[in-house]
């Protein structure tokens, strides 16, 4: 790190900073200027708390140069990580689309969604059985019954399944049915849950917290990685800002930022990101163009009567159209989307 001293800081104040840095194990490079002294500190302990220096007299500013996370960092692993779920590879050249209803409601609804998203080219079915709702009076999900419905629909349409885990007590039951465990935005800093998921070897989709910085998000991923589970994917889903027109502000810039800082796959959820159906497709197109490794999109055969998040769910026909558009955008940046020939589209299947 770099410690910038205030103008006219005294020699004693500079000495106090150097002795603190030496104590922390840093090698010190002092540079005395005409007005102010700058102290470079290299080596030392990654966990060293810069605030210990910030509070010293005469210190203007402490700039940390290395990231506080290690395993999640691209410095640690320069090449992109690919998370493999059966024959689906997330983080490779192919953009993987995960789509389905917000929550499983009944057998017909799950079946309708699964067949629609499969036909359009999705590789993974999404669907909640345990729902973290803002209000305790809202629909809370079908629980294990919902997982059963989602699993059997996934199997019928050879889709993988991603479903949210809200509490570590649900680990066994969700692992029994789901291929990928999603950690929702509200649980992004539930460190006991993250630590337990680090012990498992299940692929984890870690959503960004509603007001989490990218650094906090990567530190949460670090919790899972530190336990030895390297199958971590990140998912941007919008952050809370002063703008109230959309439900959240989808941070598209998080995609190139995360790509630079980390080797982990980065996905985008434009459904939660905007909360409004007509904004989902434009943001999905933007996300793919910006380099996202995948998308998480809510699709419902009858959104007007959905038990949760109907307003942000696409109709199957809208999803079809979006996938067709994404197939044009992805090759422009050297990616592909849904490699199988979807030529059967239009042949009445």
């Amino acid at each position: 790190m770099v410690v910038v001293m205030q103008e006219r800081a005294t020699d004693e104040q500079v000495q106090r900073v150097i002795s603190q840095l030496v104590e922390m194990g840093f090698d010190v490079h002092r540079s005395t200027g005409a007005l102010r002294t700058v102290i470079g500190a290299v080596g030392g302990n990654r966990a060293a708390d810069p605030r210990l220096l910030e509070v010293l007299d005469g210190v203007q500013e402490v700039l940390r140069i290395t990231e506080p996370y290690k395993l999640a960092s691209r410095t640690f692993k320069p090449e992109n990580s690919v998370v493999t779920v059966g024959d689906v590879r997330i983080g490779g050249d192919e953009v993987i689309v995960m789509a389905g209803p917000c929550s499983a409601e009944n057998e017909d609804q799950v079946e309708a969604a699964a067949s629609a998203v499969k036909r359009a080219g999705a590789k993974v079915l999404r669907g909640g059985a345990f729902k973290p709702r803002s209000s305790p009076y809202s629909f809370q999900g079908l629980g294990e019954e919902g997982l059963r419905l989602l699993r059997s629909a996934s199997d019928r349409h050879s889709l993988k399944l991603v479903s949210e885990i809200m509490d570590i007590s649900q680990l066994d039951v969700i692992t029994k049915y789901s291929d990928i465990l999603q950690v929702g935005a509200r649980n992004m800093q539930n460190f006991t849950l993250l630590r337990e998921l680090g012990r498992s070897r299940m692929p984890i989709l870690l959503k960004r917290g509603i007001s989490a910085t990218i650094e906090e998000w990567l530190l949460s991923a670090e919790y899972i990685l530190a336990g030895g589970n390297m199958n971590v994917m990140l998912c941007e889903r919008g952050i809370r800002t002063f703008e109230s027109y959309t439900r959240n502000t989808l941070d598209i810039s998080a995609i190139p930022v995360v790509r630079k800082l980390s080797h982990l796959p980065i996905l985008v959820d434009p459904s939660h990101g905007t909360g409004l159906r007509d904004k989902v497709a434009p943001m999905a197109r933007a996300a793919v163009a910006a380099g996202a490794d995948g998308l998480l999109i809510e699709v419902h055969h009858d959104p007007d009567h959905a038990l949760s998040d109907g307003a942000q769910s696409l109709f199957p026909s809208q999803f079809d159209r979006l996938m067709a558009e994404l197939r044009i955008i992805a090759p422009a940046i050297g990616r592909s989307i849904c490699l199988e020939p979807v030529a059967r589209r239009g042949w009445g299947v």
Partner: protein
Amino acid sequence: MAQERSVKRRLDELRREIDAIDEQLVRLLSERAACALRIGHEKKLAGMDVYQPSREAEVLGHVQRINAGPLDDAAMKRLFERIIDEARRLERIADEARENGPIE
């Protein structure tokens, strides 16, 4: 043409002089570092800290007092700060090696 050749000859001569001075500097810097290591060892035995700000201030004051230019005092101070920084680093490494035993 002849003028160019004589400029080149003078430059070569001055550059050889720089190289010779650098050789002395490197030897002296190494001698100084070895001396600093011995001091570090003594400080360790006496249970003193690696970082002795008052002594560093003395060293910096001394070199500025004896400085006759053309480098000004502030420049001399900055150069010696770097020399001291490196000596401190060397002391730390030697210290760790003693604590951790010989490197296998």
